[in-house]
Structure formats: C-alpha cells, structure tokens
C-alpha cells in the first residue's frame, strides 16, 4: 500500500530530480484497479522522503481479474488493497518510469550516483518470514529491518500474521533500488501475480540484469516470480496428489536420493508389472488421478481396453492433457477411456474387465465406507484380479515418532501390515477371492516397505 523512499545523501532533494516528481505537489497517476498517489513527507537538504501510496479499489480489482472464473468470497474481502504486492511493482514502473529506465533529464549525472537510501514498505506479506527477507536483500548489500504484526490483537492465541513493515537501507543507485524492489516484492508475497503476461520472463531478465545472475537465491526468486506458470499444475493437483506425501517423507527423513526412482513411480511400475503378469487385456484404474499409471498401461500393447475412473472431472481433464489425448491416434484412443465415477457407487460401465487396480486410493475413504467398496468390487463387479495398494503405517516409524501422523492430510486412515492383512482376510472370507500380499518399495528390516500391495484373485 505504501512505499516510502528516503535519501539522506546531501543534497537529499536530488531524489526528487531522479524520481522526476515535484516535492510541493501531490501527483496522482492511474494504475490498474486504482490510483497511485505520489507526495513528499520531507524535502530538505538533509532528508528527502518520497511516498508512493496506492489507493486500490477492491471492486474493480475483482472486475479486472475475473479470468479465474471462481466466484469465491475471498475475491471481495482480501488483503490486496492494503499490501505491498505486485501491484506495487507495476505502480513503481508507472510512477517512476524515468528512474526505472535510468534517465534523468535535468541532472543525468545522478543516475549512476549511489545515494544513502532507506525504503519503508507497509505492509509486506512475506511467505517465508524474516529469514526469506534477509536471504533476498542481504546478499544485495541491504541492511534489513522488519516488524511483524499479530493476526489479531484481540485473539493473541491466533498468533502472528505474515504481514510486516519492512525497512531496507543501502548505499545504492535509485535505479538499482527500484529494480530490486520490482522483482523482489512479488517474490516475498508469492501470490499469483495480477499482471501476468507472456513477456513476464523478459521483464524479469531486464529488471534482474546485473544482479539476479549472481544472487544466491536466484532459483527461488525465478520460481516464485514466475509462479503463475505453474497455476495449471496447482489446480490439477487434487486431494489425491502424492507430491505432498513425498515432500513430507523427504522432509522428515531428511534424505533425498536422486538416483532412486521415487516411491510413487516404483509403486506404479510394480502394479503395472503385476497387471501384465495376470495376462489381463481389459483393465480398470480406479482412482486414476492425473493418469500416471494409465500412461504406463498405454505403453503395453497387452492392454487393449483401459478405463480410468476418478471422482474429479477436473483431474480427468488434466490427465487427458498429460496423456496428450489430442495427439493419440484413433486406435490408441480406442484403447483408453477416462470417466468420472467412484468405487463407492454401483456402475455398469465398470463391468467386464479382467483386472482392476486401486493404487493408494482406499486410505482416502472413511474406513467404515470400505464395506461399500468391498460390496462393489468383490460382490458386484467381481473383477477376476484386483490389486490394491495402501501405505504401510509401520514404515512411518522410519521417519517419525509421532504415531498419529499420517503421510497425507487427506488420508483417513493408514494401516499397519497386520491391519491390512486382517482386512484382506475378512474380504476373502466374505467373498470368493484368495489373496497374496507383498511389499511395495524397499523394505526396512523391522518396519517393512513404505507401501503394501495385495493381489486378490477370484476363485
């Protein structure tokens, strides 16, 4: 909302020449979704402070960015009008065009002259806290100060907000300062930009020239700055996303082995091989998610009829993109179908397949609803081969001591090897199936493998 730049290098009012703004006037320029006011709160030989105040209209903010299509209340009640965000970056280029571009009509010698600059920003949402702030600005030579605010003083138990008043000091040229701010403000905020354009990469390269290349956190800056590019990916990552699990496991176990195929790929390859071994030609992937298993199945000509089912149309559309449906030949398209559905409903479309796979699906269901799943799979569909995988809770001991911790926020339960075996046994006594359980992933000598796989065969 507010950016104040103070110069204390005499004559301090040189700042006014550089910014090309008259100290005795209030100047206002239109920016997207509002107005930017520029005024001075000090203009003496010793101190000169120029303020850039954004007056954002929340209603037009919504109207200007309806592209998202979602009609969420948060569009109307949010922090955007009050924070220093990408809107501030665009305002900087609009209000201080010449300074940003390194031009000064009246005193061109000032452009390359470092000044004693202090910047105050109110308020900055920083996702990553003071540490991030320091990581971003200290390598560039800034002295950093930050004051963090509570979420609500009336409810101290809610804790701190991620809003800060930030003060930065440096002996630097105004142009450099503005370039740093332009790039790093949205990086701190880390929210989808409001000024998303295809030329964003070019803008970043231009503004980052001369400093971003050497910045130790360059990767993070680029990733966060270009955050919008992954929006598509983010939307598609549903509750069944496995990334979160891996992140947690990696985080907690502290080990990352780049050479090993990751846990999920390993799981999928094992299931694919098991399906191949049954000589099935028509296969079901129940809870197919973004289609990782489907892709492996498509590669094998043995599978002539593949049906992927998921509860989310959104995810299915994403899977279609990943599987490049629009580039598949008619013959390939004839082999694969994706459809919305659920293992908890009676669905004729799922009848008549040789084998079915449920990879990391059941733990996303309430445990007592498994009886519906059993009734469906083993009683109604009676698919000859059924493969089910689920995390092995015993293995959680390898990365955490917290027994209640689950690997994914959406997991409704995680079973130990004994619990899983008991369930399989119960199924096999109720329905005409026999079963074999095997490890999925590299087994720990005490706690077993990360996941467990059961193969049910109809008798």
């Amino acid at each position: 909302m507010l950016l104040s730049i103070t110069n204390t290098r005499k004559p301090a009012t040189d700042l006014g020449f550089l910014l090309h703004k008259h100290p005795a006037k209030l100047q206002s320029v239109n920016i997207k979704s509002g107005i930017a006011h520029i005024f001075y709160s000090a203009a003496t030989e010793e101190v000169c402070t120029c303020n850039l105040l954004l007056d954002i209209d929340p209603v037009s903010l919504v109207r200007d960015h309806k592209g998202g299509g979602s009609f969420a209340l948060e569009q109307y009640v949010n922090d955007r009008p009050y924070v220093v965000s990408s809107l501030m970056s665009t305002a900087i280029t609009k209000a201080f065009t010449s300074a940003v571009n390194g031009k000064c009509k009246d005193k061109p010698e000032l452009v390359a002259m470092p000044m004693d600059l202090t910047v105050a920003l109110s308020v900055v949402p920083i996702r990553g806290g003071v540490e991030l702030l320091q990581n971003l600005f200290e390598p560039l030579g800034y002295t950093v100060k930050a004051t963090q605010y509570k979420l609500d003083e009336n409810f101290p138990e809610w804790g701190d907000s991620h809003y800060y008043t930030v003060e930065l000091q440096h002996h630097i040229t105004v142009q450099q300062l503005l370039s740093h701010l332009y790039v790093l403000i949205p990086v701190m905020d880390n929210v989808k930009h409001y000024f998303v354009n295809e030329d964003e990469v070019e803008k970043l390269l231009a503004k980052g020239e001369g400093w971003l290349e050497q910045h130790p956190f360059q990767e993070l800056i680029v990733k966060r700055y270009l955050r919008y590019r992954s929006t598509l990916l983010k939307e598609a990552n549903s509750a069944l996303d496995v990334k979160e699990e891996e992140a947690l496991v990696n985080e907690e176990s502290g080990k990352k082995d780049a050479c090993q195929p990751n846990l999920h790929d390993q799981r999928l390859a094992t299931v694919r091989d098991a399906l191949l071994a049954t000589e099935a030609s028509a296969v079901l992937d129940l809870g197919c998610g973004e289609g990782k298993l489907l892709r492996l199945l498509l590669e094998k000509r043995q599978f002539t009829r593949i049906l992927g089912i998921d509860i989310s149309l959104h995810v299915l559309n994403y899977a279609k993109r990943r599987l490049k449906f629009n580039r598949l030949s008619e013959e390939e398209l004839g082999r694969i179908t994706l459809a919305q559905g659920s293992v908890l409903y009676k669905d004729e479309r799922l009848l008549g397949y040789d084998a079915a796979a449920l990879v990391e699906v059941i733990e996303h269901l309430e445990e007592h609803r498994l009886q519906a799943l059993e009734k469906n799979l083993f009683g109604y569909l009676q698919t000859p081969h059924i493969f089910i995988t689920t995390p092995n809770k015993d293995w959680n001991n390898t990365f955490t001591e917290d027994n209640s911790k689950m690997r994914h926020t959406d997991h409704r339960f995680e079973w130990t090897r004994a619990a899983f075996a008991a369930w399989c046994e119960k199924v096999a006594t109720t329905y005409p199936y026999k079963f074999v359980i095997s490890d999925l992933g590299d087994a720990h000598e005490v706690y077993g493998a990360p996941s467990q796989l059961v193969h049910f065969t109809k008798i």
Partner: protein
Amino acid sequence: MDIKIPKLSLVVLIGASSAGKSTLARRLFKDTEIISSDACRAMVSDDENNMDATKDAFELLHFMVETRLRRGLLTVVDATSARIEDRAKLVALAKKYYVMPVAIVLNLPLKICAERNRERADRNIPFEIIANFVTLVKRAGRNLKEEGFKRVFEYRNQEQVDNIQRVFRERMFTDRSDITGPFDIIGDVHGCYDELCLLLEKLDYKIDKANYCLMENNGRTLLFVGDLVDRGPNSAGVLRFVMNAVEAGQALTVVGNHDNKLMRWLNGKKVEVKNGLECTVKEMEAESAEFKHKVEKFIFEMASHYVLDEGRLVIAHAGIRASMIGRASAGIRDYCMYGETNGEVDEFGLPVRLNWATNYKGKAMVVFGHTPIYEPQWFNNTIDIDTGCVFGHKLTALRYPSKEIVQVNALATYAVSKRPIEKPAVSMQHEHDALLDIDTVLGKQLISSRLMDTITIREGNVAAGFETMSLFGIDPKWLIYLPPTMSPAETSSLPGYLEYPTEAFSYYKEHGIEKVICEEKHMGSRAVVIVCKDVAAAEAKFGVGDGKMGVCYTRTGRAFFGDEALEQAFIRNIAGVLTERGFWDEFHTEWVCLDAELMPWSAKAQGLIQHQYAGTGSAAKNALHAVNKVLSNVKDIPGIEQLQATFTARESMANQFVEAYGRYCWEVQSLADYTLAPFHLLATEKQTYFDKDHVWHMETLQKYCGGEGNVMQATAYKIVDFADPASEAIATEWWLALTAAGGEGMVVKPMQFIHRGERGLVQPAIKIRGIEYLRIIYGLGYTEAAQLERLKQRGLNTKRGLALREFSLGVEALERFVAGERLTSVHQCVTAILALESEPVDPRL
C-alpha cells in the same frame, strides 16, 4: 362393426400395396400411433418410394416400435408385413415388452389394389409386385394365430373395411387403477380361515364367519396377494369367503402358485399332490362338484397382478418387474406366481429365490408374498407381507395408503417350514443401500419433486456436485437433507443501508402473504443435526455401521466436527435433553432431524477467519495506520487534506471490520463452548413437518431449549401481521436494535413453511443483514458512499431461483426418506442440491 383390442397392443396391418392400409389406419388411430414404413423411408432418404433405403427404413421403424412399446404405448405398424419373417420381428418385439400383438388383415382382391395403384399419381408399382403381395397376404391369413397374434381381424372386400366403425380399446385385465383405495392387503392365507377372520376383525371389518360373508367393509377394499389355499386347515373356507367378497366387489385377489396348482388338479391335469396340496385335495373331495367347478373358474379368472390407485400400487404374488406392470402374457403370469430363481437349490433343498426387488426401480409400490419372512420389510418401495401364518408365525395385513402393518399370531403350527423363519441380522434395504446407483448422481438429472414438478440439473453441475460429495460428504446414509441457499432482501432505498427490513416485508406482501415471522440470526453456521435415541436406534434407522448415534453436518454435507468424539458428545447432549423432556414419546420416534444454527461461527470457519478476515484486518489496520502516520506529517500540499480524510475514515472502517468479525468468534475447546439454535423440526419417524407453520416450529423446539448444560438455545422471533402496521414497525425497531449491537440480523419467513402464491412457490426465507455484519461480506470499506451506490446494483434472480429449487429438492429428499424410499432416490436429491451450489452466484448474496 367395432374392432376390440387391448389398450396396449401392437397392431400390425397386413395388406398389399394400395390395399388401403394407411387410409384405414388414419381413420381408426391417432397419427402419432402410426408408424409407416413409407414415412420411415422418406425420413432416411427424402423419398418414400426409395427401395434402396428399405433396410435403414426398417431399422428406424423397429427402433420406434420398440421405444413406444417399452414406454407402454399402443402402436400401429403400417407396412405390407406380407412376409412371415417381417411379422416375426414385430411379434418378437411385442413379446419382449409383454404387449399383445394384433393383426388387421386387408385381404382385398388384386383387381382393386391394381386399379388403385394405377390411379395413384405419386407412385406406380409394377403389377407383378402387387400380385405377389396379394398372394402372400392371402396365404398369411391362415397362420397368424400360430405366429403369435392373439387377435386377428381379416377383411376381404372394401365394403367390410368401410363397415369398421371404430376401434374399441379394452382396459387391461390387470388394470384397476380406477380403484383408489383405501385398501387392506392380506398376506398368504394358506387355508388359515380362523386367523383370517381374527385379522379382519382387528381391522374393524364386520364378518359373518359361519356364512363366509363380509358384512361391513367401511369403504375399504380387501386385496389378497394369492396362495389362499394349501397346508392350512380350512382352504375351502378361505376360498368361500374370498369368492363371496370378490363377487360382492369387496375384494380382489391375484393368483398364487398354490392356487394355480389347485386349479390344474381340479382341471384334471397331472400334478404332484404334495407341498400342502394334499390337505386341500382332502377338503375338496368332500365338496360338491358345483363348488369345485366354481373354484376352478374362480382361480382361472384370477389376475397375474393388479395395478391400483392410478398406478401407485401394484400387488402380485411373488413379485413383478417394473417392465411387466400393467401388461399381460403367460410369461408375466409365471413370473408373478413364482418370482425369480436361478435354478440353484439351497441347503434346505428349496429352489434359491432371487430377490427380484433388488433391481426394482419402478414408481409403483409393490406388495407381494410368496416367501415367508420374519417381519415385513420395505425394500426398494416393495414389501413382502407373507409372515408364514401357516408355519405358526403371523398373518399380516398392510393398510394402504397409511402403510400401517396389522398382524395376528397363528393359532397353531399347521405345517413346518423347511427354511426356518428367522429374524435377519441386517435389513435388506440397508444392505442394498450400501451401494448406491451411479446413474442418479452423474449425467443430466431430471428430478420430479412434489413442490416444483421436474427440476433439471445440468450435467456439468451434477459432475461438480458428485465430486464435492465424493470428496467431502459424510456417509450418504446420514445425508438425508440439505438446506437451501437463502437470498437477501432487495437492496434498500435508504441511504447508508444495503439491506433493510422494508424490502423483505414488501416482497412477501406482493406475494399475497398476510403474516410473516422474523427470526434472529445468530451469526452461527447452518447445521443439520440428526439425533437418535441411542446407538441401536441409529443403526436400525440409518444402518451406517459407524457406531454413531447421530451426526451434525454443514450446508454442504460435510461433517461439522473434525473430532468424532466431540461430535458424539454433542449429539449425546441433545439426545439426553430430548429423552429427559419426553420428545421421543411425544413424537413417536427414535430419531429426529433438525435444521439449526451452530455457534460459534469460528467453530467451522476458523481457517477462513484467520486467513481471510484476520489477515485482511491485520494488513488493513497496520498498513492504514502507517499511511496515516505519514500523511499526518504532510502539510501545505494542495489536495492532501482530501487524502488525509479518506484514509483516516478507512482506518476507522478497518477497526470496525476487525471488531465485526471478532464479535462472532470465541475459542472452542469443549462441548460447553458450543451452542445450537434449532429453528426447524424437519422430520421424525414417518413424518415431516413442512405442513406446520413457523410458530409451531419455534414453540415446539423451545420446549427443548435452554436449561443447565443444554447446548440447545431458543431463538428470539417476532411475528409481523401486515394488517397491523405497528407490528411491522416493532420488528424493524427490533432489527435495528439487534444490528446496532453488532448482531447479524434476521431472517423473514412466510408463516407457512411452504407457501405457494399466484406466481408459484414463494421464497421460503429472506435474510436482512446488519451494517456491520455486511462489512465482513462486502469488504471493510463498503459503506463508502461511492462503493455502496455501486453495490446496490445487484441482481437477485439467480440466487432466488436456486433457493427455490434447492428448497424443493430438500423437501423432496426428506419426504422420500420418511416414506421409506430407497436411499438412491434420497441421495439423488441431496447430490442435486450440491450440484446447484456449483452454479456461479455472487457469494456475497
């Protein structure tokens, strides 16, 4: 001369080209009933004489015939149908849909046909072809009955054809939809005359037992599901009584397999005299030939099944498929007598009877017998009422339409059942409902509701609803209702107000309503609460198998409490109060469904409040504070005062905003921190309360609110009578006082729960929210004049349309549930409400 055919027939016209089939068809039948091969040819080729198109044309013809027959419509096929193979296809279709095939043969002389053909301007068929057809038709006439045509009408000259006056459509023998009841439906009697008499007396009939006469039937009709005879002590007596009653128009009966076998024995057919027939045979041997003849004829004339009460009720002995209802064939008669078997034999040596009702999805309620069971159970809108009286158990009557079960115990065990009659562990319906049908929750849905006729839910919305349900919904067995969305009042014309009571009152006045109720809104979250008397009652009614005795869920079907133990403590608290204050006895129920507001708001919305509201508040307060600090030091710059004034005002709005949401938040740690304010008593066993007015709901619920340790608290309300302007002023004052103190506002409802005005259903509720509350909806600065002016341009039509559809669907879901319909049909309505919620609507409304 009339042609008499059954109401549901497939009429096949047979005749050479130019024999006058189309002319006759048009004279006797409705245009839409006639499917002509020429028309089909034209439809697929633009030329009705195009012989290349014949194959496609007939495919189309057969498709249309099949569709019509499936839908139960009389259909006339106007094609030459001269060849046996052409007719065979049509007869097979008729058979498939249990429709009577009828032939009308125009066997006219070649001379006439040829002459007419010559006179036709539109086409000219070679003489040889017509001659060939004429020969084929002549030959056809003789064997049509063997081909399967039940009735054949043949005409040999034009005069005979011209003499046909009209087609008389006979009512189907099984169709008694004209009788609307009330009925008492009696299960398998099997010669238990004493018990039958006791049961009828219990049902308040006056009978003359000795003379086998029903003296007084109180305007009710008796229905028997068959198997009157065998095994029991007095089959002849039962027959005498039922024959008299049927003759007197007091009763109807369908045929049972035992009745049928007796008829075959009487008819001299070779039958094995066992399985109880030996008892009846012994009785019959003592009877007169006249009586035996009468019995034989009586059974012969028994229907396979009856359709009653305008199609709402069907009785059959062993069951019936939806596709057979109201139709007739030997196959149907067999099915109705024996039900479905798969040829297997069970451990007791009896044929395995498949539960035909598992796949029954028909609209009509089906009452049947045949398989003795421990206790009648509703299952997919069907019920077996054979409770094995002859095996020493009970004789059952089902009263219709009240669905009351009335029973008498057997006086003795007359026969021993091979398969023991035992109480099942899990109810059939619960067992069946564990797996719901996907086709009622995916794809475009057309839901007929009692409040709004057919409600259409678009496929895209259904997909979204399904996803939400699958991801977050609680077990569908609990999810029997969702409340509708609620529209605010039109925007106020008063300056400074976005909403004000006046507009809500005007809305209802315009719709001809005289009285409304205003209920305080507590700024809680909408919650639906189901509470059962105990865990056993919950399991018996809902059959979930989760060990809960109730649930509390949100407007979108999610569990309210993340912590199950806390949820159950909450439910137990309510159940305790209900038990203590006699609710269960007062309402003859073991469960209740309440519509309520649950406080605090922060209990459900903690995440939203902290991330959205507190975050915004913190950012705004602190940023604006910093801005004003800087601005206050600026002097002598033209225009700066304006800026100072704007931002000072904004800072105080930010403070008001923080206060506004803070008022509705309190920490919840234990049960004592929650409050439930119920405002609708939605349903109890077999009962909804949509017919009661809102004062009844408030007063009834008040009895169970308040008191030490009770989570339930009463809601304040005011009644406004539009005839008394003072009452309107009082309510407005009340609202001003509530909202001035930071309250959310109030909800205005028409006094009647469901109000239908001249223009249809009226909004069931309208909310009027206070100035400060709206700050957290519209943003902290919404009261700035310029913003408010813009915000007043809001449209309510979409929101109100949704509110009505969701209201209708919610009522429908609960009505279906209390009527004992299968869960799939309840779940369909509930999922549809979620689907409608995916419709993009301004969330601030």
